[in-house]
C-alpha cells in the first residue's frame, strides 16, 4: 500500500477543479465565450484525471480481501474521524461514478447558460458522490450524502426544463425529509456505541428496539433515495426536468446511494430489524416492480418512461438485498452496477434526440432508424439491456435476484418475474414507436446521426454493457468478498 492518500485525492480532485473554475470566473467577470469553452475542457480534464486516478486506485486494490483497503484515518473532532476506505462494494461504485462523470461532461457540451457555474457544480457533485462511497465514518458519510443535494438542487433548478423549480424543490425536500430522520438515528447509534466508525458500528450489537427505530429511520432515507414505491414520485419529476447529464447522474449514481445504504448500514448493523421488516420490503418491491412497470407503459414522455422503469429495476435491487442470500445480494449489487450503465446510456440516448429536436414526446418521433441507423442500433442494445436480455448486463442481475429470492419466498420471486415481462412490453413498445416504422413527422427528415462526441460517449458504455453481460464473473468475483461479509453479518452464511 502506498503512502499517498489516494482516496482523498480521488475524492477532492474534482473540487480542486471547481475551485480553479471559480477563480477563473472571479478573474473574468461577465459573460465570456472563452471562459465557457475553457470551463468545458477543464471539467473534462479533471473528470478524466479523476478516472485515471480511480483506475490506479483500483490497481492497488486487492479484490480477494473483504477488508477495507486504502484506509486513511485522521482525527476530526472528539468522535468524528476523517476516515476513508473502500471494499469491493464501494470500489465498484466509485469506479462507476468516476467512469460516468467524463461522459456526463461530454453530454453537457451543448449547455450554453452559465457554463462555468454548471461545470463547477458538476465537479462538486462528483466529489460528494465519490466521498459517499469512500466514507468509513458515518457522519462523514452523511456529510457527503446530504452535501450532494446542494449541487443537484441548483443543477436541476437552473438548467432544467419547464417545471424545473417544482422538480428541484420536490427533489430536495423529499430527500431532506428522509435523510434528516436518518441523521437522528445516526446520532442515536453514535451515542449508544460511542463511535462513528462504520466498521466499529458493524461490529456493535444494537438492542432490538433501537434496531427497529433506526432501521425505520434509515429506511426513510434510503427508500426515498432508491426510490421505492410509494415515495418514488419525486423521481419522474426530477428526471424529466433535469438536464441530460443531471438525469444520467441521478439514475446511474444517486439512486445507488439507497442500495448502497441498505448494504452498508441496514443489513450489517440492524440484522434483527432487517429480518423483521423483510416482508415489508418484499411487498413494496413487488408493488414497485409491477405497478411502476404498468405506469411506465402509459407514459408519453420518453424520459418519464425510463424514470419509471428505473423505479421498477430498483425494486429488483431491494428485493435481492433483503432476500439476504448470497445470490440475492450479489444479484442486487450487479443490478445496481448494470443499471448504472444502462439507464445512464438510455438517458444519454434521450439527450441525443432532445438536443436535436428539443422535445421528448414519444409521439413526435418515429422511424428514426431511417435517418439515424447507428443511433437506432445503440438504442436497441440498451433497450434490450433494460429488458434484461441474456448477453447484456441487465440479465445476470435480474436472474440472480430472482433466484436468491426464490429460496426465501417463491411468491415474491414469481411476482417479480412478471416485471420482466412487463419491462419487455414497455421498453420494446417505446423502441418501436421511436425508432421503427417510417418517418411521419416532416421535422425528422433532417435529423442527423451520432457525431464524434456522441460516439465517444457511447462506446465505453456499450463495451461495459456487453462485457458485464457476457463475462459477469469478473464483476461478481470482485464484489464477492465484501458481499459475503454482509451476508455473514446478516446471519445467512452462503
Amino acid at each position, binding site marked *: 500500500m502506498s503512502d499517498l492518500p489516494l482516496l482523498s485525492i480521488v475524492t477532492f480532485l474534482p473540487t480542486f477543479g471547481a475551485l480553479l473554475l*471559480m477563480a477563473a*470566473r*472571479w478573474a473574468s*467577470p461577465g459573460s465570456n465565450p472563452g471562459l465557457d469553452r475553457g470551463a468545458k475542457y477543464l471539467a473534462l480534464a479533471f473528470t478524466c484525471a479523476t478516472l485515471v486516478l480511480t483506475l490506479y486506485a483500483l490497481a492497488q486494490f486487492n479484490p480477494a480481501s473483504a477488508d477495507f483497503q486504502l484506509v486513511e484515518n485522521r*482525527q*476530526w*473532532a*472528539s468522535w*468524528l474521524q476523517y476516515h476513508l476506505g473502500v471494499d469491493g462494494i464501494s470500489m465498484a461504485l466509485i469506479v462507476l461514478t468516476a467512469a460516468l462523470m467524463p461522459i456526463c461532461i461530454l453530454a453537457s457540451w451543448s449547455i450554453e447558460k*452559465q457554463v462555468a*457555474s454548471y461545470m463547477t457544480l458538476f465537479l462538486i457533485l462528483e466529489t460528494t458522490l465519490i466521498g459517499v462511497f469512500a466514507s468509513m465514518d458515518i*457522519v462523514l458519510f*452523511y*456529510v*457527503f450524502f*446530504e*452535501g450532494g*443535494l*446542494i449541487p443537484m*438542487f*441548483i443543477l436541476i*433548478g*437552473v438548467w432544467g426544463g419547464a417545471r*424545473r*423549480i417544482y422538480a*428541484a*424543490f420536490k427533489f*430536495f*425536500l423529499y430527500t*431532506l*425529509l428522509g435523510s*434528516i*430522520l436518518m*441523521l*437522528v438515528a445516526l*446520532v*442515536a447509534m*453514535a*451515542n449508544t456505541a460511542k463511535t462513528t466508525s462504520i466498521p466499529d458500528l458493524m461490529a456493535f450489537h444494537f438492542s432490538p428496539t433501537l434496531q427497529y427505530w433506526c432501521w425505520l429511520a434509515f429506511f426513510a432515507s434510503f427508500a426515498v433515495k432508491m426510490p421505492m414505491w410509494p415515495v418514488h414520485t419525486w423521481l419522474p419529476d426530477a428526471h424529466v426536468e433535469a438536464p441530460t447529464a443531471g438525469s444520467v447522474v441521478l439514475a446511474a449514481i444517486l439512486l445507488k446511494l439507497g442500495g448502497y445504504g441498505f448494504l452498508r448500514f441496514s443489513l450489517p448493523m440492524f440484522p434483527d430489524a432487517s429480518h423483521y421488516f423483510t416482508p415489508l420490503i418484499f411487498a413494496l418491491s413487488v408493488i414497485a416492480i409491477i405497478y411502476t412497470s404498468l405506469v411506465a407503459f402509459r407514459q408519453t414522455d420518453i424520459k418519464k418512461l425510463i424514470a419509471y422503469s428505473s423505479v421498477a429495476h430498483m425494486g429488483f435491487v431491494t428485493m435481492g438485498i433483503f432476500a439476504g442470500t448470497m445470490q440475492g445480494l450479489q444479484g442486487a449489487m450487479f443490478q445496481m452496477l448494470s443499471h448504472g450503465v444502462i439507464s445512464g446510456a438510455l438517458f444519454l440516448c434521450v439527450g441525443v434526440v432532445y438536443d436535436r429536436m428539443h422535445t421528448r414526446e414519444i409521439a413526435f418521433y418515429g422511424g428514426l432508424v431511417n435517418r439515424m441507423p447507428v443511433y437506432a442500433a445503440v438504442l436497441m442494445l440498451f433497450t434490450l439491456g433494460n429488458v434484461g436480455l441474456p448477453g447484456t448486463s441487465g440479465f445476470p442481475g435480474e436472474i440472480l435476484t430472482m433466484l436468491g429470492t426464490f429460496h426465501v419466498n417463491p411468491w415474491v420471486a414469481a411476482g417479480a418475474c412478471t416485471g420482466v415481462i412487463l419491462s419487455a412490453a414497455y421498453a420494446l413498445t417505446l423502441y418501436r414507436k421511436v425508432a421503427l416504422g417510417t418517418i411521419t413527422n416532416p421535422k425528422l427528415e433532417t435529423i442527423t446521426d451520432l457525431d464524434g462526441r456522441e460516439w465517444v460517449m457511447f462506446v465505453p458504455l456499450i463495451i461495459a454493457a456487453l462485457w458485464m453481460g457476457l463475462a459477469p464473473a469478473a464483476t461478481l468475483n470482485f464484489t464477492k468478498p465484501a458481499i459475503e461479509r454482509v451476508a455473514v453479518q446478516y446471519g445467512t452464511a452462503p
Partner: protein
Amino acid sequence: MTTHLLYSLSWTQPECLLAAAALILAVLGAYLGDRAAGFLAWMAALVILVAGVLAIHFQAPAPQQVFSGAMVIDSFGAFVKALMAFAAAAALLLASDHFSGSTDKRFEFAVLALLSTLGFFVMASANNLMTLYIGLELQSLAAYVLAAFRRDDAKSSEAGLKYFVLGALSSGILLYGASLVYGFTGSLAFDHIAQNASSGNVGVIFGLVFLICGLAFKMSAAPFHMWTPDVYEGAPTPVTALFASAPKVAAVALLIRLLYEPFGDLLQSWRQVIVALSVLSLAVGTFAALVQTDIKRLMAYSSIANMGFVLMGMAAGGQAGVAAALMYLAFYVPATLGAFAIILAMRSGGTRMEKISDLAGLAARRPWMAFVLTAVFFSLTGIPPLAGFFGKFYVFQAALNAGLWPLVVFGALATVVGAGYYLWIIKTVWFDQPGPVFDRASGTIIAVAAVMTALTFPVLVAGLGSVEAWAKAAAAPF
C-alpha cells in the same frame, strides 16, 4: 476569594477597556463631530476585537470570582465574549460602511455599540442577580437607541419605540422574578441561591420561570418573539445584523449561567419550560418565515427558529448541552452576519432593496454574492458540509443523550420546513430571471462577507475539532 479592587480590575480588563474606550470616544466624538464617525467606528471595532482577545487571554484555569462575587471570570465567559466581540466588531464595520455618506452618519453609533458590547460582556460574566440586571439593561438601553438610529425614518423610530416598550415590560417581568427568587432564597448571589433553591420551593420556581421569560424575550424565543420581526425590519440593517448576533449570544450565555449555576439542581423543573420554548420557537420560526417577502423579516423568523435549536441544546442539560449550544451559536453567528453583509449590498442605483424578490437572478449578475448567499443559507438550513450542520449535529447528540428524542424529531422536521424558505431564497438567487443590477459592493462588505463565508465553509468545518475542544472547555465550569 479576595475583594481587592485591583485584583478584580486585573481580571476584568476587557470590560474596563470597553468602558474606558466608550468614554474616550464619546469625548473625541464631541470634539471632532460627526465627520469623524467613520474613524470612531473603526476605532471602536478595533477596541472590541482587542477586548475579545483579552477575554481569551485572561482565561483563568479555575473560575475567578471578582468584585466580591458579583462577576465570575471563567472559560465559559471567554468563549462567549470572544464570539460576541467578533460579531459586534463585524456589525460595527458594516455600520460604518452603511452610514458613511448618509445623513445618519453620527459618531454616537460607535459609542453606543461599545456600551452595548460592554453590556454583553457583563452579562456573560454575571454571578449574581444584580450584575445580571445591570448588564442586561446596559445592553438593552444602548440597543433601543440603536434601533431608532435613523431618526427621520418612521419605521426606525417605530422599531426603537416598540423595542423599548416591550423590552421594558420584559425587564419588569425579569425583575419580578428576581425579587421572588431573592425573597425565597434570601440572596442575590448565584452560589447562595444554589444552596437554598435545591429544595424546589414553589416560590423559587415561580421566580425562575419569570426570569426565564424575561431572558427569552431578549433572545427572542417564542412566545416572546413578537417584537423581533418589526424591530428587525425597522432598524437600520447593520443594527439588525448586530441584533441578530451578539445580543442573542449574550442572552443565551446569561440564561445558561442562570439555569446551570443557581438552579442546576432544578433541571427537571426548568427543562419543561425550555423544551416548551424550544418547540414553540421552532414552530413559529419556521412556519411564519414561509410567508415573508421582506428579507429582514425573514431573517427575524430565521433567528427565532435558530434560537429553538440553541434552546434544545440547553434543555439537554449537562456540559454536553452547554457545549452543543455554544457550538451552535458559533456556527450560527458567521452565517447570519454573512447574510446581512449581502443584504447591505442590496442596493441598486443608490436605493436600498429589502425584498426577497429583489435578489432575482443574482447568480447571473453577481456570482460572488450568490455564492455567499448559497453558503450561508444552506448553513442556516443545516445542510452539510457547511458549518450549520455540525451545530445541529451536536445539539441533536446532546438532546438525544438526555432522552429528549421527541424534541429532536420535532427539530428534524422543523429543519425540513425551514429548508422550504431558505431554499426559496436560493431559488430566487439562482433560478429566477435576472432582476435589478446591484451596485458594486464596498470593500468592507466584501471583506466581511468573505470572512463569514470562509468561516462557514471550510474553516470551522476543518477546524471542527478545535471548536469542539474549545466549547467543551467553555462548558467545563458547569
